[in-house]
């Protein structure tokens, strides 16, 4: 007998890392937010386990002076989750309806302590969270609910909604509201439309929301690239430069290359004078955008264009790029294995000298460091209990 309500709830939002399957009830949560522990400086989550049972684990770390990390001190979540952090708390968006945010703080040992839960029925997941202040944050949802949820990240209560019905296209079979970035009182959110054959539209769309009014201001589009499809947790697609310029990466389609668009500071339209064609610069389409100080930027290049979703194994390599000159410096290290870049390609600034990045491959799971001064890469922490899907420095 056909039971259709099995896996499909997990489909249609796969770019949110490996956030598929195995959603379930959440553990008993603590409605009273607990204060964070200043000793814990980093939050790290990983997908642990092996087929057919995998899920997300989260823990806090006081420092990174370790060579290997397991999840014996980690909290076990009931489903795959994406990690977001703000101040001293970590917010894990679980996959599977209703869309759920589980908030945790950390005790002195780095153990995650439940600090609340927020749910939105009808949506499969929260696809992205953008924090504005201690009491103001925005979350996009996946699964057909045309709205942005405004909530208080301290009390974890919904404080408002922004109606997105004006950006719905009736001819689109699926609409995905994805990565976001707030700037100058505006919220810029990627929107991706898919037709009846599951093809993304050959155009890049970003909805501009006026936060003071809580309304959609306009939907801007650009045909130089397409498919703004990155949510931002484990693969980032939005980057805010030090001068306030906003860079947004499009995944591309069969008819449009992957590339980077820009919305200059103070503007709410794409910069028509700027487009970085990643396919032309690197030779193949790319996914992900990481921007650090002094224009240092990275993406991940797809190796076999016919296997972008890596059914045949890891298929991406890290590339260093120059957003200003719109050039590529190539593969950051030939010694690195191909990574599962469609799921996770996290890069975070560790300190002034180095960038930490995730290597998730068939042969290893690790955090590597990139030396900013000489470009050398080195394995820093071996992840012995699975793929790192979330890594953030707590403030």
């Amino acid at each position, binding site marked *: *007998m*056909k*039971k*259709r*309500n099995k*896996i*499909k709830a*997990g*489909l*249609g*939002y*796969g770019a949110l890392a*490996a956030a*598929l399957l195995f959603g*379930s*009830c959440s*553990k008993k949560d603590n*409605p009273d937010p607990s204060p964070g522990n200043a000793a814990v400086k980093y939050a790290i989550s990983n997908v*642990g*386990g*092996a*087929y*057919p*049972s*995998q*899920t997300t684990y989260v823990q806090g770390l006081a420092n990174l002076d370790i060579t290997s990390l397991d999840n014996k001190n980690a*909290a*076990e979540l*009931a489903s795959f989750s994406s990690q977001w952090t703000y101040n001293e708390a970590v917010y894990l968006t679980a996959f*599977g*309806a209703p869309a759920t945010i589980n908030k945790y703080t950390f005790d002195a040992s780095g*153990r995650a302590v439940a600090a*609340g*839960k*927020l*749910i939105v*029925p*009808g949506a499969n997941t929260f696809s992205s969270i953008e924090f504005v202040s201690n009491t103001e944050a925005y979350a996009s949802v996946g*699964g*057909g*609910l*045309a709205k942005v*949820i405004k909530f208080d990240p301290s009390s*974890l*209560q919904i*404080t408002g909604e922004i109606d997105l*019905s004006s950006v*719905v296209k009736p001819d689109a079979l699926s609409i995905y509201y994805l990565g976001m970035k707030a700037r100058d009182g505006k919220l810029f959110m990627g929107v991706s439309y898919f037709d009846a*054959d*599951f093809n993304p539209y050959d155009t890049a769309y970003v909805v501009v929301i006026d936060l003071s009014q809580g309304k959609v201001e306009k939907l801007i589009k650009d045909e130089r690239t397409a498919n703004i*499809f990155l949510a931002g947790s484990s693969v980032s697609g939005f980057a805010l430069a030090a001068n306030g310029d906003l860079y947004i990466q499009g995944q591309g389609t069969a008819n449009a290359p992957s590339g980077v668009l820009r919305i200059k500071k103070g503007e709410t339209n794409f910069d028509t004078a700027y487009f970085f064609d990643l396919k032309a610069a690197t030779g193949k389409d790319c996914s992900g955008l990481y921007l650090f100080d002094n224009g240092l930027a990275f993406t991940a290049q797809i190796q076999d*264009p016919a*296997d972008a*979703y890596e059914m045949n194994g890891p298929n991406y390599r890290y590339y260093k790029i120059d957003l200003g000159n719109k050039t590529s410096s190539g593969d950051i290290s030939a010694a690195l294995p191909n990574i599962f870049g469609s799921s996770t390609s996290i890069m975070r600034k560790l300190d002034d000298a180095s960038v930490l990045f995730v290597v998730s*491959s*068939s*042969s290893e*799971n690790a955090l590597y460091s990139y030396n900013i001064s000489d470009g050398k890469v080195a394995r820093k922490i071996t992840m*012995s*209990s699975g793929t790192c899907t979330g890594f953030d420095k707590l403030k």
Partner: protein
Amino acid sequence: MSRFLTAPLAALLFALSLPATAQVAALTGVVSDAKGQPLQAVSVHINTQERRGTTDENGRYWLYDLSPGTYLVRFSAVGFAPAEKEIDLKAHDTTRLSVVLQTDSRTLHAVTVVSRSNAAVAREQPENIAVIDTRKYYNRPEGTISLLNQTAGIKVRQSGGVGSEADVYLNGLSGKQVKFFIDGIPLQFMGAGLNLNILPINIIDRIEIYKGVVPVKLGADALGGAIDIVTRNTIKDYIDASYSFGSFNTHQATVNLRKKINPLLFASATAFFNHSDNSYKVDAEIPVAGRPVPYRARRFHDAYTNYYGNVKLGINPRKWADELSVFTALSAVNQQIQNDRFMRQAYGRVTYAERNWNNGIIYKKSNIGGRFSVNAYLAQNRVYRHYIDTSLNTYLWDGTAPAQYRRSGGGESGPLQNSETDIVNTLGRLNLHYQVNENASLTANVLASSYDQQDNNPATKPFPVKLRKKVAGLGFEQEFPSVRLTSISSVKYYDFTTQGYIISLADNTSLSAAHAEKKRWGISEALRWRIRDSLLLKASYEYATRLPDEAELFGIYAERTYPNPALLPEISHNINLGVQYSTAVAGAELNGFYRRADNIIYAPPSSSPFFIMYKNLLKGQITGLDGEVYYRIIPTLKLTVNATWQNYISKTDGVDAGAGGTNNYYNERLPNIPFLFSNGELMYGKPGVFSKRDQLSVWYNAGYTHWFYLYWAKDGAASQKLKIPEQVAQGCGVSYAFRDGYAVSFSVNNLADAKLYDNYGVQRPGRSFQVKIRTFIQ
């Protein structure tokens, strides 16, 4: 593998080399009880010729190579008065002699003993087999799933109430790895209207559970075993009707009848109806400003209705046929779907419907020329499936659909769907049995099926899915009376060819035609050593195969499950060792089992929004023990207890296991699978309470499942591990059967109103009540 092949093939060749003895005279017939039920394992003895035989499952016996003359034939079985008949055997002739045995009035508990005559004998087959004699449950409002779940080595995990999905774990393997049959025909072929989770026990004679090693007669590509539902088979006219009703607006009705129309023709009919609102209460959450608030919800969109009707018209036994019949069967399922698989999100409009129309012909003839039997089945089932998920509303657990959660797209359970699928299934089975000599027989079985699917999706319509499967087997059974040893050796052949489509991974859109075919061989050997009449030792092995099914090969387009026609069959080495001891007062059975499975088909999580795809990824090893003891405390009071322990560990390497190339989980126990569980039943049966032939039955049963982890034991902080908690499910009931063929019963399920979970987060019904009335007229 060669060492496993050597023994059975040697036995086969030895047997085939035995010279056939010229037949002089033969004797055959059927032995039945007073109700017309065929009796198995009745001893047939011609004293002066020192010739013995026993009846088979159809009550039929045969003795051949007899010398002509007049003899006294004695029929005897435990619980029955012996019968003797005089016959005159003529040279070059087959004499027919059928008898009816009467219950032995000197043994008050004859009914119980009689029921063992079929089931207990089947239980002593060389394979590792458990047998549920359902006849003793006819007066009880039990379901088939409930009975299975009380059997050693079996754990059934249900996702809800009546009609809900049931996953049967058989010595650790589950899902598609365990195959179900009804009278040797795959239950899957019959459609959802005749599914295990709604099958009424009143149409069943017994349930045979083959653990790991499956006889060739079933023609199964089963990796972990098979369950065969053997329906009632009587030769006398009767009508058996029952109706039960209970909590959550549950109604179940069953009618069975058989009527001899005239000397040439008979008609029989089986019909049943099930309905339940499944409106039991669950603990859920509803949001208030986004914060979840606990809410005790009554399930509001979980109604299940199905009906099944089968009419058979046949020719009464003739010289050339024991049965020649045609049948037509209609069935339907209408099902509301209440929630996602983890019971977190309520649905309010998702439905599933299925219709089946199955027509076929059956031919059976035993003892052709004293040695040869044939059993043939040919049928075609037309299936229509309709899945509807078109509502934009989002329902909360209180049954409301607030406007604030109304979606602009997407269905409640996934993509918007209104998918209709038409399937034509054709199946043929030919079973041949040849009695080589008194101690040896050959069985050949061929089961061939075709599956043709057409749906209403414009994209896939040009590529109709076709699947052709063949499973053939040849088994040789040899008894060695001098050492009381029985051996069954078999060879199986599996073959499938498929035709459908693949979807380009480059653009996720383009479809093109695809074709695949695979062939495999398998072997099995089963040995039984009867040390004493009451003590058996068993050993069995099978190199088992499961062929991928149509959903795995060609996916489900609307659900974005991609085709993978390159899938290989799953394979497994299955080994069993067992000992049985039984007397009229007490008995015990202990079985050890080992499974080593490879090429297990699994759809790993994908980073793609467009698809998942099944692959041959996993390997596993299962070791375990299951055992059962029963003790008749006093003649009217019987205690039965069983327990199962199993250890399913991963043998998948790090790459295929998705563990980043590490072998951290190699040899680790698979989580989310029960590994220790037990059942017990205390049964009191008192005949003649108010009248001589009345029967009072009172029972209490309990099932225990040890807690188990949702995810791997080695991951995560111990204090924050997620578990499926320990479960204790209790039930009790009373039934009273009147001598004029009526019975009434009352039962309570989940007596303690415990919060029961078979799957993480998915609550099963609380305490419920059921009343059943039944009549049997012969």
